[in-house]
């Protein structure tokens, strides 16, 4: 299946809808990325840091108690939660920061929702001795206090964003405004498969290490490909990283979005389930918006999924039927959070807890000889405090 129909487009989705000031910078980035993506020295440097510094490969773990509890397909967890900094985000920030160095940029900026991408960016910047500023919605700073402290400890400046809904969407707006202003010296490390071309393709490529490893690991363990892949989708980088290397195989793919208080309440962040195509943050993709094209405020218990847009390649997967997208509510996600903790001794981040929650619906529909891989994108340390206020033990 041909994914990129023309440059920077997945079907009709994607593109480069940005102020003119940024167009030359995106062309420069695209050229640099195209050059280094096939450069053996760059790739081996990236592979070195992913292995020795980040802790790749991550295990593929057979979750036997979870499988037993739910009944049905064998459940394997791709353990991105075991990576350095606690989530898959570092796969991408290592790649982009290495690229920034090759391009001679000394200043790094990033946006963050849950703080995981901010921490992963601050980490890579600290390791390479680069200046780093992270934009974060002030509401998210409250929800993810621990990550704010981690970023500051790593030497990054965390800039509170007080506009709009004070969450991820507004942090991206503010990071883009910074980039427009400082474009000549600054590299903008986008944290998901969103934004203008070449970001969706570039971030996907950096995250595809998840799916490449998982594919080899499951094959080694079971002698065949899995029947299904399941991952949570906010912007969609961990899901795309897992899905993409399986795109040509007949493997079912399920993306789980944040259903918040329920789709019917309007208080959710289920972009692919309930949105319509539009342009936000540089790309044409599904979007939660009103009929006049104003972007809707979103709600999710999980800061990392609390975003009204989604990566354009997911929009293409949805329309072409290559993947299916569902949603689970805040309450169900919290139950998933507890379920994985109590059956496997693994506390997931609230983001992949959405995917865990959906397994309660999905796994029992698949026969026991079937297998599925769940993208466990991050660990729950950052969420424990927040969850303790919502859950009684």
């Amino acid at each position: 299946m041909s994914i990129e129909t023309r440059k920077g487009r997945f079907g009709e989705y994607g593109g480069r809808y940005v102020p003119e000031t940024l167009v030359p910078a995106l062309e420069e980035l695209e050229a640099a990325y195209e050059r280094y993506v096939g450069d053996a020295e760059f790739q081996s440097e990236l592979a070195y840091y992913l292995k020795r510094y980040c802790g790749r490969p991550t295990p593929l773990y057979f979750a036997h108690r979870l499988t037993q509890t739910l009944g049905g397909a064998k459940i394997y967890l791709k353990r991105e939660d075991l990576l350095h900094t606690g989530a898959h985000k570092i796969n991408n920030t290592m790649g982009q920061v290495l690229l920034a160095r090759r391009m001679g940029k000394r200043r790094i900026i990033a946006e963050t929702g849950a703080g995981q991408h901010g921490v992963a960016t601050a980490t890579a910047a600290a390791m390479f001795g680069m200046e780093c500023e992270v934009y974060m919605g002030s509401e998210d700073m409250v929800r993810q206090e621990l990550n704010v402290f981690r970023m500051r400890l790593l030497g990054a400046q965390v800039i509170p964003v007080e506009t709009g809904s004070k969450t991820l969407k507004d942090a991206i707006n503010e990071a883009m405004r910074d980039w427009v202003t400082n474009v000549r010296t600054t590299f903008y490390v986008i944290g998901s498969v969103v934004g203008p071309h070449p970001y969706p393709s570039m971030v996907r490529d950096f995250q595809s290490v998840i799916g490449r490893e998982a594919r080899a690991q499951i094959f080694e363990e079971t002698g065949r490909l899995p029947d299904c892949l399941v991952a949570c989708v906010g912007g969609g980088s961990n899901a795309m990283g897992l899905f993409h290397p399986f795109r040509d195989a007949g493997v079912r793919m399920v993306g789980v979005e944040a259903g918040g208080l329920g789709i019917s309440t309007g208080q959710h962040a289920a972009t692919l389930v309930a949105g319509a195509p539009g342009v936000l943050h540089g790309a044409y993709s599904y979007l939660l918006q009103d009929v006049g094209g104003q972007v809707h405020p979103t709600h999710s218990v999980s800061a990392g999924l609390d975003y009204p847009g989604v990566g354009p390649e997911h929009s293409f997967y949805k329309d072409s039927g290559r993947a299916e997208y569902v949603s689970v509510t805040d309450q169900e996600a919290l139950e998933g959070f507890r379920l994985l903790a109590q059956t496997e001794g693994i506390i997931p981040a609230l983001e992949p807890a959405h995917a865990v929650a959906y397994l309660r619906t999905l796994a029992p529909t698949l026969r026991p000889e079937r297998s599925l891989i769940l993208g466990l994108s991050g660990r729950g340390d950052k969420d424990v405090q927040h969850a303790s206020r919502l859950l009684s033990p």
Partner: protein
Amino acid sequence: MSRIAETFARLRAERQRALIPFVVAGDPDLDTTLEILRTLARVGADLIELGVPFSDPIADGPINQRAAQRALTMGVGLTDVLALVGKARADVRQPVVLLSYYNPILQYGLRRFCIDASSSGVDGVVIPDLPPDESEELLAAARPRKLDTIFLLAPTSTGDRIRFVAERSTGFVYCVSLTGVTGTRDRLPEDIRDLVRRIKSVTPLPVCVGFGISTPDHARQIAEIADGVIVGSAIVSLLETPERRLERLEAFVGDLRRAIDTVQVGEVRPS
């Protein structure tokens, strides 16, 4: 010839520069905006740039963000803005250019937008997050309606980009004075003269400069080098407080007008 082209032809013949004030439609409400448009038309605007509020204005600084937010709180959308222009047409003869982010136009429908905009009396459109590379469908819809498409150039634009963008622009070219977002500034960027010269060397279109032009003195300096001066945030900021709003607007726009008119426009360049 479009109303915008006619305006610049007349200004050129009269050896004058265009003053282009910008305000956000619906800030603080539509009735006030109507009064503001009438005032601008009366006190010396040559063209008027009218902002369509959007929830995520990535090219705007805090002043215009707040204005858009106030308008959105009033529930103002593109449909209301088009109706407002229609209403203003009774008193406003100057060209009106809409400044809108792309998504509201896209959701309205490109073809329908171009038809309704031109029949409401809108003369052109500036879309800060739509570079001409992505504008094929808009251009196809706008051309038959004689709606001018004004694209932006920036200090980062290369020679190739300048040519590419200018070729797809009609009416005038919008030169962004600085690398940054809209907002008031203490001084003008030093390289603006060179940027305008680079643009003028490849296109016969009028070049108007915006972003950061905050005082009558800034306006005068820009009038020395460009065909038009776009003043946004300084005006929007002045309108934020309600006391004697229209009087203060009239005084400030009058000052801008006089500052621009002190400039001796040299040889009329053949077009």
